[in-house]
């Protein structure tokens, strides 16, 4: 008599499983090509990335605020926020700073390089919820990268929002990202405030911290902030605390304030625990959180 147990092949089991619960999809990577690279500053580059398969490219959809895992075989894999408009589907843009192992390598690759893309993963900014309201987008430094997708979305649906104000600050003028787009944003009826901490000789704009702009512009607008404003904030950890506290004091309800957190995901799908804040997976419950959740999570900002 044969006493050998049957081998279970999980790929043949329950063929009805699709998408997110499909065992065969866990390591699935879209093959994509870096079609162009724009240098934005000394350290940041904008990568245009196109999913090669035309059908998959048009089927790829994401919501502003979500991220993808970018993989360079043999070099590594890391999470990046999508910086392009969702109407462009699988023809995405990623704004990447040259700072680690993978990104330093990426800074050297030429256009035409084949990479892998997984995702999109995570939560997004609830832009539909913001219809009919003022939108205040606040970015510090590289924090503009995840805000560029919601900015595009707002631009494309401009009639659905009231006042739109972008406040963007960096340490130095040379660190400003997407400078070539400021004129366009202003022409599309977006109130854009740029501020730098350390001006150089050619700088004739505002000088100081983002909180200065907030104070100057919103100190006497508490009612408006409380009743009809949504805020989106992204920047370095130290900025979150100051800006979010100021917005709270200014009147913005915490369930109408959204932040995008940065953590180092290794899997992007709630398995590796590397991105956990307190005990919450940033990759599943975030990276976009409302401020109530942030206050409720230990050590978030």
């Amino acid at each position, binding site marked *: 008599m044969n006493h050998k147990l049957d081998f279970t092949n*999980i790929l043949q089991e329950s063929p009805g499983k699709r998408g997110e619960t499909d065992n065969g999809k866990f*390591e699935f990577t879209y093959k994509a090509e870096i079609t162009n690279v724009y240098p934005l500053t000394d350290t940041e580059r904008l990568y245009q990335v196109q999913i090669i398969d035309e059908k998959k490219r048009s089927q790829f959809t994401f919501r502003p605020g979500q991220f993808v895992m970018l993989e360079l075989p043999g070099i590594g894999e890391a999470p990046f926020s999508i910086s392009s408009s969702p109407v462009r589907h699988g023809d995405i843009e990623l704004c990447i700073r040259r700072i680690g192992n993978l990104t330093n390598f990426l800074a050297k690759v030429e256009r035409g390089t084949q990479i892998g893309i997984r995702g999109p993963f995570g939560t997004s900014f609830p832009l539909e919820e913001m219809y009919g309201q003022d939108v205040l987008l606040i970015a510090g430094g590289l924090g503009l990268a995840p805000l560029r997708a919601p900015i595009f979305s707002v631009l494309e649906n401009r009639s659905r929002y009231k006042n739109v104000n972008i406040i963007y600050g960096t340490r130095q003028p040379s660190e400003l990202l997407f400078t070539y787009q400021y004129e366009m944003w202003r022409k599309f009826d977006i109130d854009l405030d740029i501020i730098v901490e350390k001006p150089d000789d050619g700088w004739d704009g505002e000088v100081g911290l983002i909180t200065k702009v907030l104070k100057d512009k919103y100190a006497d607008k508490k009612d408006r902030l409380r009743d009809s404003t949504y805020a989106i904030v992204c920047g370095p950890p130290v900025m979150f605390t100051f800006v979010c506290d100021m917005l709270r004091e200014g009147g913005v309800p915490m369930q109408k304030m959204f932040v995008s957190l940065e*953590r180092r995901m290794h899997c992007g799908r709630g398995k590796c625990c590397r991105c956990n804040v307190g005990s919450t997976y940033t990759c599943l419950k975030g990276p976009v959180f409302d401020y109530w959740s942030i206050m409720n999570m230990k*050590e978030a900002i």
Partner: protein
Amino acid sequence: MIFKILAKQEMPKLFQVMSANRIIGPVEKGADRNGKTIYAFEPVSQFEKLRLDYTTTSRPAKSYFLPSKETLCTFKVTPQGWDKYVDFNIHEPHIFFGLHACDINALNKLDKVLMNTKYPTPYYTAKRKNMFIVGIECMPQPFCFCKSMGTDTADNGFDMFLTDLGDKYMVEIESARAYNFLENVETSDPTEKEHEEYIACIAEKNRNFCIDVDTTDLTKILDMEFHSDVWKQWGDKCLSCGTCASVCPSCYCYGVEETVNLDLQSAVKTKQLYSCNLLDFAEVAGGHNFRPESGTRLKYRYYHKHRGFVEEFEESLCVGCGRCDESCLADIRVPEVIKSVRTGKREKTESGES
């Protein structure tokens, strides 16, 4: 659930029948410096080598379903592009002969997060679906606090479970596959007297627990005491070595690394189990570390196990097996840490204080 009585003299025959498959079980590995026997889960081909009376193993059977290092995929790289090859690294079913309730419960907990959520991990799922588990009742060791964690009995997650009644076993049968195996040996239906023997055996087990951990409202207390000094005190003791995670049957955190092979034409993506106590666990590119102090890392470990997992799955991720306590080089014990968080102060212990 079906119960049968299996005489001990039938066991070699049962083992023989089952050994048409690869069997993993507890075997004796030697003795530690105090003369205490060390056991480990290893492939077993002879019944005599199987030590069903083992106390506990220093390491769980994790290497068979969550190996410390595992290849996730390989790449073939050409100047034009690359191709990815995925293998879940399991090609035959495995029989786990002699798992204690804590280790079975650890698997059940891992199932919740690794198999039954959005994005199930196929590397774990494939191995888990090819496990046949024979559980065995045990007697509490000095470090065991499974009763406090509610993991002293396994309600499911095994194929059959044995309880030692002297010259026979009470066998709890959970699957058809287990029933089929048992048809090759002589069994009988348990009598009223054997029921009583079984109940007496469990009562004896209950009497032998020497650690009790009060987990009442622990999720709330962990939140209230987030800024408590005790975390720093335990952190000062902690060596951040990660031993606790490596011997934990339910720790699953990992890191991913990719390497180009020497031929420059292929590459490999590897997953390595990690520990949240290791220094760079929460470090991001550019060097910012969200948990630079060992105290915050140790705290996070307790947060994940005793709060976050509870919030998500209504049970703790700790099974109270005591392996981390026994192997900790700095004498940090889970029951003492939990107690100190609850009382707000760390008590002096017998095991030497720094």
